[in-house]
């Protein structure tokens, strides 16, 4: 087991009752990273973040510094949009970062605006998070009064307003182009990429950087302690630390900041300081490694490190740091239905494969769970998936405007391939699988047997 003694980079104030106040923030090193940034040229701050190789924590895991470099030169104004819409099932970290350490996020926002040259920032908080909105509003008001935000910050020539904006309930708005549509006052429907890559054509069709709350919350520490100290933690391409929310059937469900790249799933699920083992000492059946959109992993994957590239090769992702644990008693068919219902409800309706596909998947699964399923339905589920996400490859082929449609197929392909017998028990007979499912994570023991027989 590798429970390391890596420092708490972003959760250091989580245990303080007043960690959200300006006084406590300033007393614990607050706004020092901004000071350090302002003392050097913006371009060198971008270089620092690049060399820290800070991966985006919103889901896609794209390096932040590299993304910042995508703004076309000479096109202004640029905007920064903070993605605080956290709603991927299983994900619980951005809300805590906003409620318990809002100044850390604000400082990160300011560092990013300075480095990239953004003339205004919008902090988009999920609508349902009333306390986070309250804490951020208070923190912004206090930071303005103290001269940390606004005109001529810390007496420099750097000026930027940070505006609190809030949503109104729609998972799809977490997708960056939908977030921008929503911020323009529209229905939150994604835009086609290309041409609407935010860094090139984002908010009001100007260059816009969209970053996740956790991503930006790392910046004060990186600027205070240096990229080298950050990159000394972790492994390969996954540097620093990362927050994982471990939920479901563990003894100690919780939100844990762990060293990225080296800590394993086994550590996360079983170490006494983290998950503490499976509840009632049951057997582990499966786990979702990175939010509802991620293909599932199984007990044989426990020793895999939390490293983005390694997990990617298994055909799944660390996504939003949401690990959901299923013990042996879990009804996988029902779990699968609940996840698919989520995607069907949240599809924005713009693309036919996603809108129709998720709806039909939900209907078929409902029929199965209600006891009216037919043996052919099991293959039919995969057939519908194959129409949404052609070949069910990993990473999926783009058949829709955003990846939500393909995401809906992850839980189905995972559950059907691995737990085919549970589906068969529901439909009352053996199912013949004819659809070719290519993603590496979708190969369970049932599939292996089929392959061996052939």
């Amino acid at each position, binding site marked *: 087991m590798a429970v390391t003694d890596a420092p708490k980079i972003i959760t250091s104030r989580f245990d303080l009752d007043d960690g959200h106040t300006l006084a406590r923030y300033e007393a614990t090193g607050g706004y020092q990273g901004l000071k350090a940034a302002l003392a050097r040229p*913006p371009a060198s701050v971008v270089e620092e973040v690049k060399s820290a190789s800070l991966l985006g924590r919103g889901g896609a895991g794209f390096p932040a510094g590299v993304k910042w470099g995508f703004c076309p030169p000479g096109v202004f104004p640029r905007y920064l949009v903070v993605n605080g819409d956290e709603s991927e099932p*299983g994900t619980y970290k951005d809300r805590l970062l906003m409620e318990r350490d809002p100044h850390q996020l604000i400082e990160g926002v300011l560092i990013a605006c*300075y480095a990239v040259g953004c003339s205004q920032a919008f902090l988009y908080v999920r609508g349902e998070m009333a306390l986070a909105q309250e804490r951020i509003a208070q923190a912004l008001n206090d930071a303005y009064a103290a001269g940390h935000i606004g005109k001529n910050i810390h007496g420099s020539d750097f000026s930027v307003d940070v505006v609190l904006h809030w949503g109104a309930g729609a998972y799809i708005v977490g997708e960056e182009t939908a977030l921008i549509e929503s911020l323009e006052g529209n229905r939150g429907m994604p835009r086609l990429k290309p041409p609407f890559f935010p860094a090139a054509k984002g908010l009001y069709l100007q260059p816009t950087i969209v970053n996740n709350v956790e991503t930006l919350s790392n910046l004060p520490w990186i600027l205070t302690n240096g990229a080298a100290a950050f990159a000394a933690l972790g492994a390969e391409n996954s540097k620093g630390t990362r927050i994982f929310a471990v939920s479901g059937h563990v003894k100690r469900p919780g939100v844990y900041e762990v060293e990225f790249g080296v800590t394993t799933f086994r550590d996360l699920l079983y170490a006494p300081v983290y998950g503490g083992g499976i509840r009632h000492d049951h057997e582990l059946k499966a786990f979702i490694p990175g939010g*509802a959109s991620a293909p599932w992993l199984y007990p044989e994957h426990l020793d895999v490190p939390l490293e983005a590239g390694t997990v990617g090769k298994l055909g799944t992702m660390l996504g939003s740091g949401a690990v959901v644990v299923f013990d042996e008693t879990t009804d996988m068919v029902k779990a699968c239905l609940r*996840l698919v219902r989520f995607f069907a409800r949240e599809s924005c309706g713009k693309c036919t494969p996603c809108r129709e596909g998720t709806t039909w998947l939900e209907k078929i699964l409902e029929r199965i769970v209600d006891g009216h399923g037919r043996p052919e339905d099991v293959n039919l589920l995969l057939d519908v998936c194959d129409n949404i996400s052609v070949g069910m490859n990993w990473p999926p082929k783009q058949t829709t405007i955003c990846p939500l449609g393909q995401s809906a197929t992850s839980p189905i392909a995972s559950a059907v391939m691995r737990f085919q017998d549970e589906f068969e028990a529901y439909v009352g007979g053996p199912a013949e699988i004819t659809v070719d499912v290519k993603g590496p994570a979708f190969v369970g023991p049932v599939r292996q047997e089929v392959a061996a027989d052939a």
Partner: protein
Amino acid sequence: MARFSEANLATALEIVSRYPRPKSATIPLLHLAQEQDGYVTDDAMEHIAELTGTTPVQVLGTCSFYEMFKREPVGRYLVNICTNISCQIMGGEELLHHAEHVLGIKAGSTTPDGLFTIEDVECIAACTEAPCLQVNYRYFHKISNEEFDEVVADLRAGRRTDEIPPHGTLARVRQHIPADRAAGPADPAGVPEPVWLSAHADAAEGEEA
């Protein structure tokens, strides 16, 4: 009622002034309308259209996309019970059934006294604290049936009103940018390269560039 009151109009104008384009204020103003009236009325949407330079149907188009906006009255307390994956496997559906039984209504409906509405909702970012729910977007973590009954009894008796404001009120602290500290909104059509970038670029030219 229904159009913004004088005080809310002042708040609305302040919100609009922060954005480069007034239409961006649509969602915050819809929330303000819902805070004022408990739901979003047609008159409020007309008023918002005037304030954002759009049409009432554009405001309705945006409003109808988002689940939090109610276009007819709901209970004073909106009880949102999460049944998504982490909660489902930890008893979220059982909690929902208990709530439906105790309040005598199905999810999606309101008690006859207008006090409670139940919704069966998607993940509310409290997954490690399952099963969980929100009342008017205030969290209750790891809630048992007994605790649920207590909360309902308290709300019926008029207690906990400090903790849980009526439906429509989200943050009770508003952002306020003092005029002398404001950098101002960045007009997409008229903001040049920021000075701190150009100043450093000039300075750096001699060194490396």
